[in-house]
C-alpha cells in the first residue's frame, strides 16, 4: 500500500490522462487565485492555481472541462479537470527548470464547441531575482507593497507621496535600469522624485541593487521587454 502510494507520489502526472466527459459548459473563465506567484525554477508553487467557469449570466458552472497549458517543462496536476460544485477548477503547478516569466493558459469550450481561455502569469526566480525578492521583502515592500499582513503592516497609507507597486509595469518599464539603480542608490531626489524614498547605496551593495532591479523586471505587469542591442543609425 505504502509503496504504491509512494510511487504515485514520485511519478509525474502524465498528460495522457483519460478524457473527461464534461457535463456542462460556460462562456468565460475567471481567475479565482494563485496567479503571479514567485517560485523557484522546477518547484511547485505554494498555492494552487484556481479558475472559475461562468455562464453568460455570470453564474458558476459545474462540470465544465478546463484544460491548462503552459510552456515546455511546466507540469500540471491535473492537466485537465471538470469544475467542482462551486464551478471552480484547481491546478497544482510545478514551474519549468529555467527562470523567468511563465504564461499559463486555462481554456474551456462553450456549448457550440468554441474555445475561450484566460492567460495568467507565474514567476520563476533565478538566483538574482531571488536575492532581489529577499531584499524587497526586507527593505522595499514595507512601503511599496500596499498589502498588510499580520506580521508586517504596510506603511503605504502613511506616506504623503505614494510609492508604486513593483508589479506596476506601466511605471517601471519606462524607467531604465540605470535610472532605477540611481534611485535605489541615491534616493528619490537624485532624479527629481520624492525624498520619501531614501538612498540605499550605503546599505545595499551593487549586486543587491542589481538584484532588486532584476526582481522588478521579473514581476512587472505588463511584462518587461529588454530593449535589446541599440545600434547607431547610419
Amino acid at each position, binding site marked *: 500500500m*505504502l*509503496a504504491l*502510494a*509512494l*510511487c504515485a*507520489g*514520485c*511519478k509525474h502526472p502524465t498528460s495522457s490522462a483519460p478524457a473527461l466527459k464534461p457535463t456542462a459548459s460556460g462562456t468565460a473563465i475567471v481567475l479565482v487565485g494563485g496567479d503571479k506567484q514567485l517560485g*523557484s*525554477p*522546477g*518547484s*511547485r508553487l*505554494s498555492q494552487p492555481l484556481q479558475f472559475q467557469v461562468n455562464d453568460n449570466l455570470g453564474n458558476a458552472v459545474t462540470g465544465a472541462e478546463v484544460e491548462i497549458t503552459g*510552456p515546455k517543462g511546466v507540469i500540471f496536476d491535473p492537466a485537465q479537470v471538470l469544475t467542482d460544485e462551486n464551478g471552480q477548477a484547481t491546478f497544482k503547478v*510545478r514551474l*519549468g*527548470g*529555467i*527562470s*523567468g516569466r511563465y504564461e499559463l493558459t486555462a481554456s474551456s469550450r462553450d456549448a457550440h464547441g468554441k474555445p475561450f481561455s484566460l492567460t495568467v502569469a507565474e514567476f520563476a526566480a*533565478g*538566483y*538574482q531575482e*531571488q*536575492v532581489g525578492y*529577499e*531584499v524587497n521583502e*526586507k*527593505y522595499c515592500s*514595507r*512601503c511599496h507593497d500596499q498589502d498588510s499582513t*499580520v*506580521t508586517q*503592516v504596510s*506603511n503605504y*497609507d*502613511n*506616506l*504623503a507621496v505614494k510609492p508604486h507597486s513593483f508589479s506596476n509595469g506601466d511605471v517601471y518599464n519606462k524607467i531604465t535600469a540605470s535610472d532605477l539603480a540611481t534611485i535605489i542608490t541615491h*534616493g528619490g531626489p537624485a532624479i527629481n522624485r*520624492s*525624498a*520619501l524614498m*531614501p*538612498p*540605499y*547605496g*550605503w*546599505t545595499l551593495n551593487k*549586486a*543587491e541593487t*542589481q*538584484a532588486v532591479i*532584476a526582481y522588478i523586471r521579473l514581476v512587472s505587469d505588463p511584462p518587461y521587454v*529588454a530593449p*535589446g*542591442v541599440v*545600434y547607431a543609425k547610419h
Partner: protein
Amino acid sequence: MQTKKTGFLSSLKAIVCDPFTMFGVVSAILLLLLTVAPAKDYLSEWRGYQRQYLTFIQNRGDAVTLRRHFQGGINQIWIPQLDVVDRCQTCHVGVGEASLADVKQQPFRAHPPIPHKLTEFGCVICHRGQGAATTVNQAHHSDMTGEEPILPARYIESSCGQCHHEPLEGTPKLNQGRTLLSRYGCVNCHTITLPDGSTMQATDFPPPLTHIADKTTREWIYAWLKDPAAYSSTATMPNFMLSDSDASDISAFLMADSTPDPADRISSPAASKTPPADPTAGASLYGESFCASCHATQNEAGNLVGGTLGPELTNVGTKVKPAWLLAWMRDPKHYDPATRMPQYRWTDAQLNLLAAFLENKTDPDFVANVHLQPATKQQIAHGKELVMENGCASCHEIPGVPKPENFGPNLSRVGSKPLVQLIFLPGMEHSLPAYLSGKIRQPRAFGASLRMPKFNLSSAQVEAATTALLSLTDRSFSLPANLQVPSTPQSHYEPAGQAGQLMSSLNCLSCHSINGHGGTMAPDLSWEGSSVQRTWLESFLKNPNTLRPTLIRRMPKFNLTDAESTVLTDYIMTAYQTPSFVRDEMPLTGYSPALIEKGRELFYSRYACQSCHMVNPNVDKGYIGPTLTDVGARLNAAWIFHYLKDPQALRPGTIEPNQHLSDDDANALTAFLMAQKGGAGQGAKQ
C-alpha cells in the same frame, strides 16, 4: 541453388583475378570508409546544435556580435585543481552571452546571473552530470557506476551548500532544509560532519522524560505515540508507526520508568478550586503575557495563531496534569533545565488563572478511545526494548536508557551516494533526489524493519530537506579548502554572576541575542548598554511598553522586583557596551534651539524620516521604525549620532538605511531627537 552459388563464385573469381576490377572495387570501399569519420563528425549531435545556433542568431539584432563570439568545435572549460573538464559550452553555445538572457529555447539561453564566473568553476560542480561527454544523453542522463545524472533544477540550491555552510541570501530552500535537519532532530540520529570537521547540531531540545508521569497520563502518551500530528499539527515528534500493543508497552515503560519530582506535586489546591471571578481574566492574562509570541493556538476559524518557539497549546489541557502545569509555570527550568520558557514571576492568583484557562483547552476525542489495561512486568520490559530499538533516547533523556551513538547511518556524504548502493522501489524514478525525498516522505515503504520514523512535513519541506541532504557531497570534502565558507562558529556566551542567573531564569536568550548567542525574535542586546539611558531601561524592564505598535510579538512583563530590575540594569549598562565610541561623549540635554530647529528641518524635509518614524503623533504617521516621541529620554545622544552615521555598524541587519550623513547633519538630527522627551507633546511644540 547450386548454379546460383557457382555463379556468384565465378563472378567473385573474376573480380579477384582481374587486378583492374579489384583495384576499382577496393578503392570504392576505401573511399566509402574514409567518408564515415567525417560524416559521423558532421552529423554529430553537438555540431547540429552549433548549426542550429548560427541559424537561430542570424536574424537577431546582435547577430554580428554573437557570430564574432562564436567558436565552432568542442569548447571546454578545464580547471585541473577542481577536477573539472566541462564541454557543456559545446552545445550550450550562448551560455556566456548576456544578450541571450531572455531566450527560452535551450540549449541557447544565457546562464542567469550568479555570483560566480563559469570559467572559474565550470558547470558540473553545480549542475552535476558528465562534463566531458559530448552527447546529451551521456552528459545529462547517465546513471552508470561512478557517473551521476544532471541535478533537477528544483534542487540546484544544494550545490551552493557544498562550499557555503552559512545561511545564504538567495538560497531559501537550502537554508530551510538545513534548519529542518536541525529542528526536527534528524541530526540526533544521523551524524552529519561538515568539511571543516564540525558536526551539525540540533536546535530543538525535546523534553526529558525523567518525571513524565508527573506531567501527563499513560493514555495521552499512548495516543501521542500513535500519531503526534493528531494532537498538534505542528508537532516535531515523528510518527514511529507503532502497533497498538507496542505503543501500549512503551507508554507502560515510560510511566514505570518515571520518578516522581516533589516540586510537581506542590500547588495551591485551595486557590485552584475556586473558579475565577472573571471568565475572560485567564485569556487576558494569556494575552498580556504575550504567550502567543512563542506558543500557537488554533483560533475559531481553525488557523494556528502564534509563534513556533514553544509547543502548540490548542489541546494542552488534554495533555498536562493541573498540578504539574502550576509547578511548570512557576519554575519551568526545574522540570526541564534546557527549556526556552522564561520564568514569569506570576503570583499564585495569576498562576491559577492561567492554569484554569489552559486546562480548558482540551480535545477529549484525543484520548477518549484509549483504554489501557494495567501493565504487566513483561510489557514494561518489552516497552524498554522498544524504546531502545526505536532510538527514543537519541532525542529524549530517559532514565536507564543511554543515548545511542550513531543510531542512524552517517549522512556526511549522502549527496554523493552512488545509485548502485540504493534499493529503489518498483516504479520509482532512479535518481538520488527521488530516493532521498521518498525516504523522508515514506521511510517505512523501503522495508518494514526500518527504524526511521515518518515526519510530519509538507512536500515543500521535504524538497527543502532533500536539497540540504544533496549538498553533503564528496566534492564538498575534496574542493580546495580556501573555497569553503564555514558557518559562523556557534557562540556559547552566557552572562555571568547574579545578573547571569536572572537572565537564565528569564531565558532572555530565547528571544534576544547577545554576543552571538541567542534567538532572533527580539533585538540584539550586545550593545544595549551604549544605546539606552539607565532610567529608561530600569523602568522598561519593570513594565515593558512597546516601541513598535505594529509588532505582534512583544516583550512580556515578567513582574520583576525592584531589586531584580536594578541588578539587570546595572549589568546591561556595564557589560554590554560597544567599543566603537564612549557612551557619554555627548550630553543628554543642552542643545541650542537653533541646532534643534535645523535638525527638525532635516528630519522632515531632507531625510523624510517621518515616512517611517513618529516624532509628533498628531502629525507623523510612519510606523515602520520605533516611535521616537520620547527618544530623548530613551537613547543616549552618542548612540543616536553614531547610529545615524552608520546604522548597520551598530545594529547589523537593521533596515534603517545608511544615509551617509555629514557630521553636521547627524549632529543636528541628534539634537532634535534628544529634544523629544515625550510627555506634553514636546514634538508638536517644536
